[in-house]
């Protein structure tokens, strides 16, 4: 333990290069911070706009959330410059996450159900079909 500690001091205790490196990082963090704040304001503002069909609101909302999520994962969590092993773990995880997310929709009938189910504010087609397959309500 003591050895490790003294090593650490000797190695990067006076490393001006690394400090410059971190300072560059901090500028990026501040930029990401501003973008995340902007994204949050945008998400709320857009949710009050009616894009005609509700699925469009959902798509835009999720798109902004995905961009924000990418910023956090990529830069705050340093995923853009991570080691290969971490990437391998994440690729497998994301694959199963996506599979898990959509397996429920796949288990329902066709794609018309998705359109009908999300499109709850319009009175157009798909609604009746969705209602017919929707879980029973009490």
């Amino acid at each position, binding site marked *: 333990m003591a050895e490790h500690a003294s*090593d650490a001091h000797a190695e990067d205790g006076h490393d001006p290069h690394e400090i410059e490196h971190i300072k560059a990082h901090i500028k990026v963090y501040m930029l990401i911070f501003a973008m995340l704040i902007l994204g949050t304001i945008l*998400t709320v503002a857009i949710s009050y706009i009616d894009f005609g069909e509700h699925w469009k609101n959902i798509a835009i909302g999720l798109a902004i959330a995905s961009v924000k999520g990418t910023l956090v994962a990529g830069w705050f969590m340093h995923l853009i410059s991570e080691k290969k092993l971490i990437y391998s773990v994440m690729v497998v995880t994301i694959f199963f996450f996506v599979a898990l997310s959509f397996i*429920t929709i796949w288990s*329902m009938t066709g794609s018309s159900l998705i359109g009908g189910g999300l499109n709850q504010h319009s009175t157009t087609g798909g609604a009746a079909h969705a209602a017919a397959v*929707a879980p029973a309500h009490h």
Partner: protein
Amino acid sequence: MDIPYTTKPRPDTGLYNAKVGIWLFLASEIMLFGALFSSYILLRVGADPKLVWPALAAWPSHSDGLLNVPMGAINTLVLIVSSVTVVMAWASLKMKNFNKFFMYQGITVACAILFCGIKSAEYAAKFSHYHLVLKDGTAFTGHLEPKQYFMTDRKLRQAKVEEITFLKDPQKGHAEASAEHGSGDEAHASHEPEKIKMSDIKRLTFWGPQQSTYFAIYFTMTGLHALHVVGGALVIGYLWLPGSRMWKTNPERFTNRVEVCGLFWHFVDLVWIFLFPVLYLL
């Protein structure tokens, strides 16, 4: 005995132990929340588009004003700020500046407490807000007078209550007013509470997970997320105060600990970035 690679990266992977550990843990966390997001999608897609909230299988729309959007948006900002301070705390340690680390991590802990405080206020508003269905089929939302938490018609019947005083929310069309239900005294000022006989009531229940499929998934997801905020805050708080002793004996390892708990904290922020639009806005 010394455990290898607690500070120095392993030559073949280029990673120290805790880094691999936290990412494997985060992978399992992604799957945990994945199961809930999957359930959310099923409930959301399966919701009957012809029904209007507060019907059980209906999905509430933005204008129903169920959730307090300003509170949710503020909480989003609070978590974003804490995500920045947690990464700045780590960067400060990398630059050998313990005092800055202490300041940034203090802000992180304060943000975590603020988040939990706002979430609690939101929950409290839900638990004292009611859904009332009469035997003639009409349904209302509103508050019991005097204010009561966690009440249901079953509990009232067991207590042999024969009549309740119910303050109805403004009906739709006044959706702006009802959106302010968190502090809704002004919104209700023009309304008079009504006496309603228990024999006319089919269902009276607070806005908890049992009220509808929407609230079931809302409380499950935000509840699990809030537990993560509490857990993360405990670890960050430990490393902020007693755990920071390690800075003097093994600064590199301490910096790694701060980095690793920061990674967890970013994940918690990441989950909220999706939860907020999904539950509050869409």
